[in-house]
């Protein structure tokens, strides 16, 4: 078919579309080191987790997730409850947690969808220590976590919970856990994807079976080992 508008036509439109698709595919395969390099360059600007620089793609920025309206405010008389299949139910203030043996970690926060914040500083109490304090009774095989946002839940097996780098964190990024990041107290499960690290933690119930949490009901893996779980 002759070109309706005369001249010598070149298929520039197709080249633009295919060129962008090529850049897109290359970006998926090779974008990880590029974004890490951008993160390193911007690190002085994004430190402290604020400012417009944190909106730059690849910057070491947290995507602040909340599944309810806004970031929930902590109740003024905040207590962390440990109950269920335990000998001694616990009700702990932040000061109570701070008085326990502290564990400090420097470890990335890795989202299952790919975004990652390297070298995050965490301070908290090993979850295993809380379980020892409460004392498990017979039939205890799993933990069910609830958030005071009223919606989000999570789960771990007792074995997973006893890993040394699974902590109930009251500090991250060099200060108390902020409201946006799930303060005053959140979970940090270092070996698993970020959705396991429930924010605004209010209750840890010791139970007899694993009950899938909020995102797991939407198809994500219950055993969310970073780089290993295939979720299928």
């Amino acid at each position, binding site marked *: 078919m002759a070109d309706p508008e005369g001249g010598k036509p070149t298929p520039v439109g*197709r080249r633009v579309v295919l060129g962008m698709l090529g850049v897109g595919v290359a970006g998926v395969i090779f974008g990880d080191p590029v974004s890490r390099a951008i993160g390193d360059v911007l690190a002085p600007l994004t430190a402290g987790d604020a400012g417009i620089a944190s909106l730059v793609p690849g910057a070491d920025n947290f995507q602040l997730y909340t599944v309810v309206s806004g970031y929930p405010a902590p109740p003024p008389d905040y207590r962390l409850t440990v109950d269920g299949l335990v000998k001694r139910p616990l009700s702990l203030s932040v000061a109570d947690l701070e008085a326990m043996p502290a564990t400090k970690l420097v470890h990335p926060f890795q989202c299952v969808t790919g975004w990652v914040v390297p070298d995050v500083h965490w301070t908290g109490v090993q979850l295993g220590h809380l379980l020892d304090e409460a004392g498990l009774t017979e039939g205890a095989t799993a933990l069910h976590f609830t958030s005071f946002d009223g919606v989000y839940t999570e789960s771990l097996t007792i074995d997973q919970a006893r890993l040394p780098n699974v902590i109930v964190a009251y500090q991250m990024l060099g200060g108390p856990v902020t409201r946006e990041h799930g303060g005053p107290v959140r979970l940090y499960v270092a070996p698993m994807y970020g959705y396991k690290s429930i924010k605004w933690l209010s209750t840890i119930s010791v139970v007899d079976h694993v009950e899938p949490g909020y995102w797991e009901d939407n198809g994500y893996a219950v055993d969310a080992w970073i780089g290993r779980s295939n979720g299928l």
Partner: protein
Amino acid sequence: MGPPPGKKRRKAEQLSRFDGIERLAHWLTASFFLTLIATGAALYIPAVIGFVGRRGLVERIHVDVGLALPLPLIISLAGTWGKGLRADIRRINRWIPGDRQWLRLTVHRQPTADVPVGKFNAGQKLNAAITGGVMLVMLMTGSVMHWPYYWPLSWRTGATFMHDVVAIFFVVVVIGHIGMAVTHPPALRSMFTGKVSRAWARRHAPLWLEDLETGP
């Protein structure tokens, strides 16, 4: 008593620039894109996240609308009703010497009144091609993020990075597109009514007018 002669003549001077299918496809795609930009902001910008929250719901809307994004185009192209759209896509794909000249003059902020361009100028052609490319890249990277377990972790990091970069790039393109539309009311009006005047075509799309007058 009929309409006044002047009005009658002006009506006869109207040319069909876009048929109904093309306009429907444009506005459906536009509303999908605006929904994606709004929900994307509510997934990405901390201040908006704090205001909107409800990540599960926002994410579901974003993903569903994103997967539906190419449907208006695909359905419009699928049958005999897509004749006008197919012809326009062919026009948009092919660049003629006048397009390069138009682009050069525009980049140097010089008038383009006498440049022999067809139904679409180089800016419109670029906008359409970039929009098509953005749709493909966003669908691909979004799919990697939404079905994460099929891909290595580093690909997911790359996909997230590309999705963010291309989204910001495309927001700039959309702002430019809307800016051109509101500063060129006859062109904008034609995306509602389908019509442009003969005088407009003579000025902005001379080769197209030539073809209409002499036949293809």
